């Protein structure tokens, strides 16, 4: 059983990371975070690049803290394939088994088996210079798994690939990681990687875990602003009230309670940007919740236009980052541009209020 328990604190300059994560044997966990959230530092500590100030890394019952990298049995797949340029694809894959004591023939057989797993048998005799980026990354996947690691670390494994080959490599990685049943920890900023590969999400922000849970659940019901943003949802924190949710400064957002929440409990209101209607002037006699915002940005979002809210003068801070998806025709009718003051409105039936503690 290759259960991983990490509890580390690393300080690098002014940045402090303090993270505790457990990955069950055979589980795939994705660590998500914006740039600067501490993902790379966390992975570096796991891979042995940085020495944690404090904490412990226990893999399959072994404490890894003082184990040299080559005895950790921790495989690493990073953005670039980094295949050894002087070796053929097959010898690259056979490198791990050879280095850990396999005989030449046994290592070659292992390599051929893994090359077949990643559909790269035909590439076995090629040098890295003769491989495309996607092909090289497939060989790198085979190479990382061929030495039978107890833990596989994935560091933004598709970030450097062309967009048109990424889906194929991503689903291939999912297939072989599942087939190998290897405990896997992935660091990524792309929610799609997490959706395809991960059983569970851990969301980092400012060097700390702000949220964790099964992938589908975190994306359906995010508790943190960052998780809501990657899930494509609007999130307002506050406390539950009879009408829905009351923010810290007293705005009431009408909403429904899909599950019982006691009044006054910490809660979050979640709604889709598509359910937000936008007006120049506050509509009269509307039962909707109305929020004044200053338009911060406009960006294309599929067939719609996403309007990103900023904080208006004297407005509450929580509106920052709220999104509204409207049709291009509606944007033209409104005649808005960034900096304009607008009203975001949403119907109570479209807002779901969940307890924040989970």
């Amino acid at each position: 059983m290759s259960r991983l328990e990490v509890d580390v604190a690393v300080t690098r300059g002014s940045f402090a990371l303090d993270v505790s994560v457990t990955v069950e044997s055979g589980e795939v966990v994705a660590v998500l975070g914006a740039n600067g959230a501490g993902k790379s530092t966390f992975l570096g500590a796991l891979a042995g690049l940085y020495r944690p100030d404090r904490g412990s890394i226990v893999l399959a019952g072994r404490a890894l803290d003082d184990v040299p990298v080559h005895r950790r049995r921790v495989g690493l797949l990073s953005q670039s394939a980094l295949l050894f340029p002087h070796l053929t694809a097959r010898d690259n894959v056979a490198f791990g088994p050879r280095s850990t004591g396999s005989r030449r023939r046994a290592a070659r057989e292992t390599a051929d088996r893994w090359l077949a797993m990643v559909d790269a048998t035909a590439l076995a005799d090629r040098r890295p210079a003769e491989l495309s980026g996607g092909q090289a990354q497939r060989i790198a996947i085979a190479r990382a798994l061929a030495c039978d690691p107890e833990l596989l670390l994935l560091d933004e494994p598709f970030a450097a690939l062309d967009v048109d080959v990424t889906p194929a490599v991503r689903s291939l990685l999912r297939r072989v990681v599942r087939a190998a049943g290897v405990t896997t920890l992935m660091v990524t900023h792309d929610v799609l990687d997490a959706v395809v590969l991960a059983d569970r999400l851990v969301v980092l922000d400012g060097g700390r875990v702000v949220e964790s849970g099964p992938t589908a659940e975190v994306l359906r019901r995010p508790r943190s602003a960052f998780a809501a943003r990657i899930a494509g949802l609007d999130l307002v924190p506050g406390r539950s009230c009879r009408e829905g949710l009351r923010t810290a400064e007293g705005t009431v957002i009408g909403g429904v309670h899909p599950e019982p929440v006691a009044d006054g409990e910490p809660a979050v209101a979640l709604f889709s940007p598509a359910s937000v209607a936008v007006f120049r002037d506050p509509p009269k006699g509307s039962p909707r919740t109305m929020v004044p915002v200053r338009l911060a940005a406009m960006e294309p979002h599929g067939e719609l236009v996403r309007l990103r809210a900023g904080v208006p003068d004297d407005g509450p801070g929580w509106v920052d980052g709220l999104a509204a998806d409207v049709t291009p025709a509606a944007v033209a009718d409104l005649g808005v541009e960034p900096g304009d003051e607008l009203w975001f409105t949403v119907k109570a039936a479209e807002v779901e209020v969940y307890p924040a503690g989970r």
Partner: protein
Amino acid sequence: MRTTVPRFLWVPAALAWLLVAIPVAGLVLRVDWPNFLGLVTTPSALAALRLSLETGLATMALCLLFGGPLAVVLARSSLPGLPFIRSVVLLPLVLPPVVGGLTLLFLFGRTGPVGGFLDREFGITIPFSTGAVMLAQTFVAMPFLVVSLEGALRTAGERYEAVAATLGASPATTLWRVTVPVVLPGLMSGSVLAFARALGEFGATITFAGSLEGTTRTLPLFIYLESESDLDGAVAMSLVLVVVAILVIVVSRTRDLR
């Protein structure tokens, strides 16, 4: 698109090239071609050529054996005072070779600290022996190997070595199966440069090893002595040295030209 070279650079550039090319061409014209074969095959000329090639190869081996590890330490370790260590290694590049020869003589001479000890305890005398030739040549040639190998190691970076470690390769396995193959071009050109520098070594050799035919009289020493008595012989052997030098350049630059 290529940028245009400013016109005023052409004249000094041509002069610089001619400064190197014309003397070599003049040497070819000056050679006594009818007697060339006879001049380069006299016993003392052959002995000098043979000694130069043998000590040159031995020097190359010594540079690899000791300079190679030094380059790895300079490129990969985080020793305190690394810049100081590196500048010491570069010293022979800027030091007049005669000075290098003198320092070696003081150290390894019979009255020197190391030479005296070797003489008393083991009866070994280094100065004015073939060993002294190799020592002098290694002194001046080592920086060439260390500099080009360290450069190759830095260019290659530590990424491949880090990957090898995650694949379970010990530091020693990583060195032989990853580091050395990856920097092989730098290792080869550094070795060839060290060999070439050893082949041309004069000052340190004559100071520390003297000029005994068959034992310490290498090709440059032979040519210098011949130029005072038999200029034709000196010119002929110079041409041999030029040909060897051109071969060395061709071998070490083939990769770049391709």
